[in-house]
């Protein structure tokens, strides 16, 4: 059995804590609303940089990418989402060289785990913020990431000079 003073201190302590709670929600009532009015605010919508929405292969102005078609991303992918199709070329001095033919990415099976980007030795791929990925057919989810007629970026001139 609790003591009589304890009863009253419990009572008033309880009332005080309730009033504290009310004041917290009162402040919350006047805070800025955080809802994103999505289709209307497409222009001003801010997506976090680290958000992984879609795999992409950046190309520079000369339509060159950094993918050497080594296939490490394909091996690291847990879902078989990436298929690197390469072709073999013969260079002028008679060496055989592997080159990227098609880089196939199936958005439908991707879990956005980022393993491909982490494991890529030449930083050829990265995830972009382009999250509006809905399509009407599944086949449209399968994309080719390297652009038509693109080729491997040549090694940097600094490396050549050595």
């Amino acid at each position: 059995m609790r003591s009589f003073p304890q009863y009253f201190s419990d009572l008033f302590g309880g009332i005080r804590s309730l009033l504290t709670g009310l004041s917290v929600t009162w402040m919350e009532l006047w805070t800025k609303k955080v809802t994103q009015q999505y289709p209307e605010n497409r222009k001003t919508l801010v997506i976090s940089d680290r958000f992984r929405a879609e795999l992409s292969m950046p190309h520079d102005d000369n339509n060159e990418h950094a993918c050497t078609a080594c296939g490490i991303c394909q091996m690291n992918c847990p879902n078989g989402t990436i298929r690197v199709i390469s072709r073999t070329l013969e260079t002028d001095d008679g060496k055989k060289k592997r080159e990227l033919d098609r880089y196939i990415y199936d958005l439908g099976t991707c879990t956005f785990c980022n393993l491909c980007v982490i494991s890529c030795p030449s930083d050829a791929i990265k995830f972009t913020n382009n999250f509006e990925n809905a399509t009407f057919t599944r086949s449209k989810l399968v994309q080719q990431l390297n652009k038509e007629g693109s080729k491997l970026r040549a090694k940097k001139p600094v490396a050549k000079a050595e």
Partner: protein
Amino acid sequence: MILNYSQPLELSKLTSWIDTALQSALPGFWVLFIELLLVGIALLAAYAVIAIILIYVERKVTAFFQARVGPNRVGKYGIFQTIADVLKILIKEIIQINRVDKFLFFTAPFFMVVASMLTFGVIPFGQGLQAIDFNIGVLYVTAVSSLGIIGVLLAGWSSNNKYSMIGAMRSGAQFVSYELSAGFALMTMVVLSGTMQLGEMVETQRYCWNIFNGHLASLVAFVIYLISGHAETNRGPFDLPEAESELTAGYHTEYSGLQFGFFYLAEYLNMFIIAAIAATVFLGGWMPVQIWGWDAFNQLMWYIPSYVWFFGKVGVLIFFSLWVRWSFPRLRIDQLLNLEWKYLLPINLVNILIMVLIVLSGLTLTDIFGK
């Protein structure tokens, strides 16, 4: 003493005009018949309109408390959202549940609606806007609003579902307990006003609201009435009967379509009724703010029609109820009953005693300052 202030926008002018027009055209019986019909239709319409407005208001206020924007697609600021919801619920299928007690299952929602509907008869919405002014209005309100629990219990019993049953039983325990506190709080005010007639109660609060009139005792009674009112309406931190994490939806789990709509409607209307009774008994009802001797100011206040005052006061109380709902965590059933039986009830008993002493020794504010 009735002071004659000019009241240009009162609805009582319209009602008395209708009355005289009917009196001159028809024999007595038909006048009564048509007037009863009109009052009934007006109350039913008010019932539906208030529910629709309340649902919209609750969704908006809830959203603001959670830093959201709330319904904003149907119409400007989403004002037609509730109407769309009502239309949807009207055309939804009422699903037949196997092995329910058919008769009771279909009766239960009507009990809920009728209980809250009956209360509307005595609520003074404004000057002269009261269907019937009983001399035992307070008693009638408490009696009639207790009927709702029968609907809840029947719904739980007839649903053939253990969750419904547990929810209904919890609701029963909760309702019976808190009805006691609400009754005592109202009784404190009856002691203070010396009348049970709601119309007269409003009149006695002309210059001093009951909440101030009895000093601290009134304030305590007001707080207790609000707490037990929330508990009676199964809302706020007291929504145990439909604790969705434990009981899916409690007593209305098996209800669908319009039948569920009835429960939903009754819940919102009960919230309104609690606020309306609290406003009438504690905050002066439809009476505008009046200060003794300031005739110009009083006249100014009377230009605002009495029903605006009433709905304003009710609105403040409803906002408070929503505020409480989104501030406090839900109580456990044992905590709920502890709160009532170990705290509210003893406080209430002492409170009513103090109030009686205050009134008997002539220490109320109106007694001290003499009208």
